[in-house]
């Protein structure tokens, strides 16, 4: 069966994003003119280091690559334990850990206007031109975007997750997203499926939504010099052991695969509530010697786990974009994954075997992958990944989105308020009222602490000793 998957780099009217490789000369000339403009970007989210996850990784790597392109990037997030105040990360990436404590699931307490003074101060003192919010489930992000739009800044939003349409939590989140994105300049999604999801949930016009995929640090995820040899076939699973990651599927699939292929062994990394089910499965089918449970795997250890296997198994029930299979492919592993969300868009056919989220179909897919194994060259796969998914490419495409945001015309308060009214019968009026009060509070802040009183911060420059240190590090690389 031929997989009808959209080409990641296709140029259509709806996408309005051109891959760097497919640019025509005239477009390149335009892009060169745009490149002369340097942006000052504020990344806002509840999720950042020292917490770890896909969103945190995305913000960090994107920021580093934007810094290399010559832009200035500042990250704002809430405090993590004792980590509060201003910190500097690699390359002079400045991070504001604002002392608001996490409320639930690493989100700050949702207050409509609590963050207005501090966000305003940061925007003025850092001379920010673009505010880039990350993750629909970040209350910090929503508040910051709302206040930035009130103050007239260009706003870009990146959505990292898929949400449903039917349950109470999703309905509420979709309404909040509709409110926040009603006035956003541009939006970014990590896959076409995610774009479709976000457009349906928020009511954004599709031409405002760009698709910029995630990427992987191919310098870290390299194949093993020597592939694990022998007649044994090792299948690796690394994910949080929660319902959303399809652990219940694994409980059905693993015994069947072990029965059909005596030379197959499983390595399962990760921890979570569903780990008990996997342990029970091991006990029930006497698979202690063929299914190895590693527990929680730190990110620095992920590569060493991946290169010990031949096949990577992903059983997620929903994914906007699966970074884990990128990392596995970069390490030279053949991937077997459920055909959910944005997963079919991620890898070419020769690198992935897709299956419906059904135990029987997954067993069949694993069998197909085992038959494909002799033809796999890990180094070639790694080189392909390095070309396909590169953070510098992501940064360049994000830069194009920023330039588009700057070309959007500024709108006064009345035009913006009318847009909020269309968000719903009663929600629209509520949003309208929230924005009016926000505007008035901002004007009050202008009286209390005028913008002229907030002194601008000098830009970070590496001292001489650090310059030499950085040069040495770069030469070593």
């Amino acid at each position, binding site marked *: 069966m031929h997989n009808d998957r959209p080409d990641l780099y296709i140029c259509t009217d709806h996408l309005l994003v051109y891959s760097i490789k497919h640019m025509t000369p005239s477009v390149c000339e335009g892009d060169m003119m745009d490149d002369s403009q340097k942006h000052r970007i504020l990344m806002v989210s509840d999720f950042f280091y020292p917490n770890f996850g896909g969103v945190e990784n995305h913000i960090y790597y994107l920021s580093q690559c934007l810094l290399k392109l010559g832009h200035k990037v500042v990250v704002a997030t809430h405090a993590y334990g004792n980590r509060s*105040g201003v910190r500097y990360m690699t390359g002079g990436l400045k991070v*504001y850990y604002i002392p608001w404590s996490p409320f639930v699931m690493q989100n700050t307490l949702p207050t409509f206007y*609590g963050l207005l003074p501090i966000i305003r101060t*940061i925007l003025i003192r850092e001379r920010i031109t673009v505010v880039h919010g990350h993750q629909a489930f970040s209350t910090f992000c929503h508040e910051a975007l709302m206040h930035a739009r009130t103050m007239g800044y260009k706003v870009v939003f990146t959505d990292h997750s898929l949400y449903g349409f039917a349950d109470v939590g999703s309905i509420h989140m979709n309404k909040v997203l509709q409110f926040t994105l009603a006035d956003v300049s541009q939006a970014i999604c990590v896959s076409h499926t995610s774009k479709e999801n976000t457009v349906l949930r928020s009511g954004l016009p599709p031409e405002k939504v760009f698709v910029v995929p995630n990427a992987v640090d191919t310098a870290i995820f390299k194949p093993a010099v020597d592939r694990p040899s022998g007649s044994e076939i090792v299948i690796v699973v690394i994910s949080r052991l929660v319902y959303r990651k399809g652990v219940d599927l694994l409980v059905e699939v693993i015994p069947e695969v072990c029965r059909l292929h005596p030379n197959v062994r499983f390595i399962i990394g990760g921890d979570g509530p569903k780990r008990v089910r996997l342990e029970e499965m091991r006990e029930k089918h006497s698979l202690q010697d063929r299914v190895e449970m590693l527990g929680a795997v730190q990110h620095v250890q992920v590569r060493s786990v991946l290169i010990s296997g031949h096949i990577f198994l992903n059983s997620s029930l929903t994914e906007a974009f699966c970074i884990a299979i990128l990392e596995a492919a970069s390490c030279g592993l053949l991937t077997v994954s459920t055909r959910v969300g944005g997963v079919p868009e991620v890898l070419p056919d020769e690198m992935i075997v897709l299956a419906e989220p059904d135990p029987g179909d997954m067993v069949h897919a694993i069998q197909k992958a085992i038959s494909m194994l002799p033809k796999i060259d890990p180094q070639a796969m790694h080189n392909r990944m390095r070309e396909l998914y590169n953070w510098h490419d992501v940064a360049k495409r994000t830069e194009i989105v920023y330039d588009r945001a700057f070309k959007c015309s500024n709108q006064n308060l009345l035009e913006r308020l009318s847009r909020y009214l269309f968000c719903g019968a009663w929600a629209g009026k509520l949003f309208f009222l929230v924005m009016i009060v926000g505007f008035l509070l901002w004007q009050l802040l202008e009286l209390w602490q005028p913008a002229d009183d907030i*002194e601008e911060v000098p830009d970070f420059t590496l*001292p001489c000793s*650090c310059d030499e240190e950085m040069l040495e590090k770069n030469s070593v690389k």
Partner: protein
Amino acid sequence: MKGGRLWWRPRLQWHVYMMEFWPSAVDNTVWGLAVPRGCLELITMGASIRKMMLFFSRMVIFSISNARYTYVHDQKYPSEDVDIHHVVSRRSNAKYLFVHASALLVLACALYLYVLKEKAISLVYYSLLFDIFLVNLLLGKPVKKESVVIMPAFGVQLETHYVSGKVIRYFVPIDKILKPVLIECVTPVTCYWTLSLIIRGESEMVLVFKNLRPPVKMLAYVWKALCAATDSKEETCTHAE
């Protein structure tokens, strides 16, 4: 003597500005004026320079002002080893009037309700208490001036002068100062710069100008003077090791 010819630098400033300003011109001086022609001849004078230095020893050397603060670099004593920096709070008349007008307005409303609407007299008492609370809250503790007295041979003395005339002094010996640093502070509602001294053997830093929070433009001059006094390099490296 530490710093060798360190004492010479403020003297040069004295030469530059003596011909231009008197103490009454403190509020509007701007750093970076060109050297007037007459100063060159003045500098070349020999022994008479010392004589004039003694005569004009109370001359104000340098100052910066903005809407809320005035920074003064003072040479109060004839000794060449004392360096004094002041940050003076300019009383905000607008804020003062606003607070008192609000208080009067609240009191007037209460009196109106009592006299014409025959509300309880306790309303007037409550509004009076609220006025007192409001004035104390918004006008706050009245700090008039904060000073840093740098004595390179001995240490640094931090002074807080209140409107009531009370003065609180804190002395830090020079050998206990590891490094003066300019740090950005973040609170839930704002960001600001502070000048701090890292003290040997203590886990907490000593804040200079703790109450007034002057802008970084003014703090930078004090920071440079403190670095010179403590023989620290003026590094802007912000890497955390």
